[in-house]
């Protein structure tokens, strides 16, 4: 152990206080390693048994000028001894590594919240870059908060000076782990998980490993001995069902969900994609799983990506394409081709703020209409939406199952919040997952490419390479049964109806909608997609207070669950919180003639629990 790790003064007596839930936001320059710091804190918290939920918030610019407002990167983490479903409404603690980080994030900090500030970075130059007219550390503007200013940069370089052979820049880049060490003491976390990570990560660079280890421990010891902090906080283990857990983001769960789906179907996964935020991580993850036979194709553009997926599906693979909203806009014509050729296809849309380029790194749910109605002609497709990061795994499997069974395209609507947010995932037992059934046509006797399955109306899937089944498909209207090009008016109307009917019949595979709370009452909060956490937490809280509120969450949006109409009619008011201007709300008003209320938030940020509570209270 290095001498610097010894406390400089004997430890003073400090209080320990137990708290239930804490929300911390780490904020700094995009080069400061805030995502890594947040991730380490999250992993350690999960390992000690807390429930966790995270929300990274990073700029679209890779490296905006150091110290500037657009360059601020943040990572919010909620950890608790209770069951939590969101990364927290408001941070209780804000770690600000420079003036810009303080300026951007301070408005979100709770009243009286804790500020941990790297005072070394509050230089005249950095204050100017952050457009501060005076130094907030000196002008009294932080009076409403518990402020801890620490010279983190100096403490960091002092700890490493003469200890490691690294450049000044390399030393400076360790300071996030100094801050992490401070936070570990403050919230009574063990250092081991991060120390193990450091040793694995920097195995080939012992100097860097040593430096990170030293500053992490120094940060911890500093917090323990300094008089700046008088209290450390403990958070008990959460009561979580026993089992194996994995911290997982929505994009990770999506990728491994599709690998699993392909295995369950006994088919090869083909992923055609063009890089786009926030969907690219799915491509990265799938590209690592070639030993499953997974074929990833980074196409020349969005259209090529979906067309290749359609071609692969024609040839018998699981045809999958993934993108975000602007990419879906480009793919729509091809998705129409998949509808017309009645081939299975799954389109992943990790939604982001729109329209156009919009807010690439921020979340939104405004592509529901695009999925349900976004193509020329009567062009129905199935639509599903995972509710949480871990649920992405389930819905990925579900979307492949549906696409195969009904020979239709299926939209899978994730969003930036699910994609990058993480939560604990109780890993399933693989052997308990149901197989996905696939049958291919093989018998040439009376083979008709557009013959229909009685129950599902699906046409047969006949793979090129099968002798005797040579046939032609395409985007021109086809005669039912024979598949010949056909412009007959009666046939067209029949085919339009058949394509719709296939989607309608998929309701047989949609589980009935469950109501959380009383099945009848004053208010139903109806959601879909990533709003699940905020809605459920809000409703649960109000139910505990005895309020007549229930909630229900749609994971199938086309077709809707068969009992949706009945569920809606059992409530006086239906409120639909959405990160759009009321798309689901419009759909249920049109279909069920209920006077539902749209509750819109389109700020690139998820709903807060209290926002939903406030809205519901208006109707009680």
């Amino acid at each position, binding site marked *: 152990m290095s001498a610097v790790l010894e406390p400089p003064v004997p430890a003073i007596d400090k209080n320990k206080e137990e708290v239930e839930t804490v929300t911390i936001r780490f904020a700094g320059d995009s080069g400061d390693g805030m995502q890594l710091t947040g991730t380490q804190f999250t992993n350690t918290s999960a*390992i000690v048994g807390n429930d966790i939920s995270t929300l990274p918030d990073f700029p679209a610019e890779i490296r905006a000028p150091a110290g500037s407002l657009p360059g601020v990167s943040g990572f919010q983490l909620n950890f608790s001894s209770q069951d939590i479903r969101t990364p927290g409404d408001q941070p209780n603690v804000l770690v600000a590594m420079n003036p810009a980080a303080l300026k951007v994030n301070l408005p979100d900090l709770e009243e009286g919240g804790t500020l941990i500030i790297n005072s070394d970075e509050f230089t005249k130059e950095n204050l100017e870059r952050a457009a501060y007219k005076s130094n907030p550390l000196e002008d009294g503007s932080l009076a409403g908060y518990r402020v801890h200013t620490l010279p983190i940069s100096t403490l960091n370089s002092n700890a490493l000076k003469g200890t490691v052979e690294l450049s000044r820049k390399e030393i400076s880049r360790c300071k996030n782990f100094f801050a992490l060490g401070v936070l570990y003491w403050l919230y009574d976390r063990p250092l081991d998980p991060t120390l193990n990570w450091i040793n694995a990560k920097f195995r080939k660079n012992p100097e860097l490993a040593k430096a990170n280890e030293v500053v992490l421990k120094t940060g911890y010891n500093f917090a323990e001995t300094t008089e700046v902090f008088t209290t450390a906080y403990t958070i008990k283990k959460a009561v979580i069902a026993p089992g194996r857990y994995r911290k997982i983001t929505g994009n990770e769960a999506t990728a491994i969900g599709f*690998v699993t789906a392909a295995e369950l179907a006994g088919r090869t996964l083909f992923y055609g994609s063009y890089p786009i935020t926030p969907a690219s991580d799915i491509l990265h993850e799938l590209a690592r799983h070639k030993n*499953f036979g997974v*074929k990833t194709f980074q196409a020349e*553009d969005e259209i090529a990506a979906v067309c290749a997926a359609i*071609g692969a599906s024609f040839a018998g693979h699981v045809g999958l394409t993934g993108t975000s909203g602007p990419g879906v806009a480009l793919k729509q014509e091809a998705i129409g081709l998949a509808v017309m050729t009645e081939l299975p296809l799954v389109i992943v849309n990790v939604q982001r703020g729109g329209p156009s380029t919009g807010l690439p790194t921020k979340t939104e749910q405004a592509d529901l209409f695009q999925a349900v109605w976004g193509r020329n002609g009567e062009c129905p497709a199935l639509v599903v939406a995972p509710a949480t990061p871990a649920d992405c795994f389930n819905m990925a499997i579900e979307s492949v199952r549906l696409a195969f069974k009904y020979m239709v395209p299926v939209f899978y609507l994730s969003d930036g919040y699910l994609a990058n947010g993480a939560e604990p995932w109780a890993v399933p037992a693989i052997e308990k997952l149901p197989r996905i059934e696939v049958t291919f046509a093989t018998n040439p006797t009376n083979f008709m490419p557009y013959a229909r399955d009685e129950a599902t109306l699906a046409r047969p899937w006949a793979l090129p390479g099968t002798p005797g089944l*040579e046939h032609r498909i395409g985007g021109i209207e086809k005669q039912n049964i024979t598949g010949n090009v056909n412009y007959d008016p009666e046939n067209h109307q029949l085919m339009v109806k058949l394509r719709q009917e296939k989607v309608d019949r998929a309701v047989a595979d949609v589980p009935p909608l469950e109501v959380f709370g009383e099945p009848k009452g004053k208010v139903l909060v109806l959601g879909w997609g990533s709003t699940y956490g905020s809605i459920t937490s809000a409703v649960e809280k109000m139910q505990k207070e005895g309020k007549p509120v229930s909630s229900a969450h749609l994971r199938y949006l086309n077709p809707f669950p068969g009992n949706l109409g009945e569920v809606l009619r059992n409530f006086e008011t239906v409120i639909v919180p959405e990160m759009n201007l009321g798309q689901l709300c419009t759909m249920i008003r049109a279909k069920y003639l209920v006077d539902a209320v749209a509750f819109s938030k389109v700020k690139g940020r998820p709903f807060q629990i209290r926002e939903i509570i406030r809205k519901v209270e208006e109707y009680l």
Partner: protein
Amino acid sequence: MNTQGNGTNGNGHVDQSVSAESEGGASLFHIAPPPGELTKKDFVSNQEVRWCPGCGDYAILNNVQKVMPDLGIPREKMVFVSGIGCSSRFPYYMNTYGFHGIHGRAPAIATGIKAANPDLSVWVITGDGDALSIGGNHFVHVLRRNLDINYILFNNRIYGLTKGQYSPTSVFGQRTKSTPMGVIDYPLNPLSLAIASEATFVARSIDIDVKHLGAMVEAAAKHKGVSFLEVYQNCNIFNDGAFDYFAERSVRPDKVLYLEHGKPMLFGKDRNKGIRMKGALPEVVTIGENDVTEADILVHDIYLEDPSVAFMLARMEQPEFPQPVGIFRSINRTSYDQLLVEQIDSAIAKSGPGSLDKLINTGDMWTVE
């Protein structure tokens, strides 16, 4: 690099030193006898062909159907993929698997098909608008990807299916429905673009030069890697006679240069005219005049790795030069579909076949008792 070939070269490359002169020319492909009992008829679908009477597309269809039995590939392993346009109706008329896609996207659909099943013989049928205008991006990328497919571009220098607007290959100044005062953008040369896009096989033929066309289709089919074949195709409704100035039978010997591997670039009724290098540029010379002998004439080499000569030939056109047809370039490069499979094999060799149990039980994990 093999520059001359009999049978296959050192890398298993099929020899494409085609000797296919104009109609009535002496030798064509010497190929193995057709396997099985497939005949041209087996490749004719039951669909009524709906092109305008007299369209050049008929000749191309006929030729492709004729060549098919000779390729030794079972019918069920063939897939014809197309985009939108007159030529893109082609797959409906082939009794094979077919996919009539959307405008410009056939190469992308073909990529998915071939990547999913490299055993299939995949053909892309496209036109000048489909390939070079709306599908320009996919044209470039499917060629540089070197997907092992055959790509036939029917170039009629006009939009037929939309009834007569100018296309990216329409000549400068051409009056069409959408350019009543003449085209004011400069035409694209499909071969230049194909060569610039790293195509490993680049050839050109003419719809009415039946034997040459058949030989080119066959050579394209046998090339491992992407094969690009441009066919000058007459649209007798909207651009009739567009290629007569060199392709018409009576002027053809003087105005078309038949490129043949290993042979001097000679043309003319008396085969006394040829291409010679003058500095960095080609020129047309006559043997016997100004001391020019056959030894001065450039000898064609389709296997040159460097694309410069192929590019130079692709830029030659009437009236300054004879219009070259034949194989411009044919080089060896491992195909995309093969590399894709190799990567998968090597991943399996390295980490073993994928295990779902391992897949989900990795990362940041912990146990709750």
